[in-house]
């Protein structure tokens, strides 16, 4: 199974709050899990990524939590700001597939309100 399921489809959070986006996967061969941020009219930009050997990775206000047994991972945005309003995509890839192509989730449109 190549699918990566992402929820919610859209999310509204007040400024200063915590934004949480969840993803789940089926294929246990996946070994790289990035999150991309996309603004209107732009291509996706890599935000943060994790491999299964750790359960959490933090970069500034952005944290990935990873649960290998549940095959789930999530993005937490602390102290959410209006500038964080964008579409977020989770993705997964496997070094076992040769070309390490990314399989993307369906995306979450995040809106931060003042």
């Amino acid at each position: 199974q190549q699918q990566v399921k992402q929820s919610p489809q859209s999310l509204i959070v007040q400024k200063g709050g915590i934004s949480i986006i969840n993803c789940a996967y089926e294929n246990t061969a996946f070994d790289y899990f990035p999150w991309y941020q996309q603004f209107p009219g732009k291509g996706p930009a890599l935000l943060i990524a994790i491999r299964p050997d750790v359960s959490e990775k933090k970069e500034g206000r952005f944290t990935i939590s990873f649960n290998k047994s549940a095959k789930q991972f999530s993005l937490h945005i602390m102290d959410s700001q209006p500038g964080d309003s964008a579409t977020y995509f989770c993705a997964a890839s496997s070094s076992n597939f040769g070309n390490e192509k990314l399989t993307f989730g369906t995306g979450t449109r995040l809106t931060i309100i003042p």
Partner: protein
Amino acid sequence: SAVISQKPSRDICQRGTSLTIQCQVDSQVTMMFWYRQQPGQSLTLIATANQGSEATYESGFVIDKFPISRPNLTFSTLTVSNMSPEDSSIYLCSGGQEVGYTFGSGTRLTVV
């Protein structure tokens, strides 16, 4: 990380014609990919562009419709052939030396 430039950024094309999209990377990269994205939706992989050999297409995409070239490690083109309104979409180039790929800003194609 690599910086990717795509052109054109947008185009309006007549039904039945073809458009070639160019992707230039500022450094040599191992992997290059082409994606399609409908506005407000996720990214669908069209193919992996292989340097010096035929591209590897995903299910639902064929070489006759989407021919791809990759003459070296910094450049690739995607042609959308015999276009129909259903081909109206955003086409994105992506690449990098390893996972954590960079994306271009995309080509917004409208077929009329």
